[in-house]
């Protein structure tokens, strides 16, 4: 026998499940997008620090997906895993940045191409064909609006009155 309230509760339950599914789905898409964009950056960029930033971006995508799954299943597994991801990412960043500094001391720049002598034997060497000239816009740094005016440096006028 079905009580009158049961139907409503059931409908609310179904709506809740659909909402949770919806949420999970959306989070997984955003996580996948972050992961994919990070992959593109890691493969394409040449600056070691930017490459590392892209790896961190991929980790963020994974974290989002894990937390979404955790919420969906109603347990803490996803969040605990993300906490460990944070810890490992911190270690990784410390070590990697120390190594970047050492590599910079040897090579004088952060370019990945400097280390291409470590490539496989049968791979051909990468040579920069054309390096685009720096844009004008690249050298335009943001400036602060000038605050106040420069006082005139009239040395003859005494700044302070000697006698009141």
């Amino acid at each position: 026998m079905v009580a009158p309230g049961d139907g409503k509760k059931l409908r609310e339950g179904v709506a809740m499940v659909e909402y949770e599914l919806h949420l999970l789905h959306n989070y997984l898409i955003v996580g996948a997008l972050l992961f994919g964009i990070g992959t593109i950056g890691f493969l394409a960029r040449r600056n070691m620090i930017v490459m590392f930033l892209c790896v961190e971006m991929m980790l963020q995508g994974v974290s989002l997906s894990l937390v979404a799954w955790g919420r969906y299943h109603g347990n803490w597994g996803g969040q605990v895993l993300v906490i460990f991801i944070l810890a490992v990412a911190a270690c990784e960043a410390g070590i990697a940045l120390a190594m970047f500094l050492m590599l910079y001391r040897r090579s004088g720049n952060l370019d990945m191409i400097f280390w291409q002598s470590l490539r496989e034997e049968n791979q051909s060497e990468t040579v920069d064909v054309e390096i685009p000239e720096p844009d004008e816009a690249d050298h335009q740094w943001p400036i602060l609006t000038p605050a106040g005016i420069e006082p005139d440096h009239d040395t003859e006028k005494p700044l302070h009155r000697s006698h009141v």
Partner: protein
Amino acid sequence: MSDNQTLFAAATVLGALGLWQMLPRARSGIGRVVGPLASLVSLGLFGYLAPRLMLDLNQSDTSMIAGQVIFWLLAAVTVISAAAAVTMRSPVYSAIWFALTLLGSAALLMFQGAQFLAVATIVVYAGAILVTFLFVLMLAQPEGQSHYDRVCWEPLLSACTGAVLIGILTLAMHTSFTGGDVPVVASTAAESSDILTTDHMARLGAELFGRHLIAVEVAGTLLMVALVGAIAITAHGRTGRRKETAGGRRDG
């Protein structure tokens, strides 16, 4: 394949094309306009499609709509700033855009009910890791831009790789969602949602230091080892270089 999936694939390809055009390289006048335009169109397509891809919400509940709007705003901020972080020429600018990505994803985590993680992401990533990045950038590249920030490895191939990866991930998701095995889990989980309770932090701590205690200890040890390792790397590099220069002088 339904229309929605075709459109989704088109959005992915368009997004990859836009990123390809926006990556730093010798740009023509057309590419400068086409890249951002294609990315924007694909972003709009994603926003239009993603709610429709899997299920049509039968009852349009007004209380959910506000949540959806907030979610899509946060997601747009996160994804746009991620794309900007990847494509900026100046590494300092990409680091700052990445900080915005982190803020967006922290807000997304908060939206999901993961309060501790949202704050921890900001503190650990934006507060510590990103600042260290900027320190190293200032140490290693004080003049700002270098020539290697204006060129890329294989921009087209990497954009294709990213598009294929996104396609595979979302397609796998779609098949598993329509397979019918996931909703069963949801029906059991939705009622006992342990995560959304008010004593969130206490429960997370109990879980972390109860069931995962050994893992926490291992992670602490790992942090310690990484600290010692980072110091050892820099210290050893310094003495090694000193020895090299000393040897060079002796030879000379």
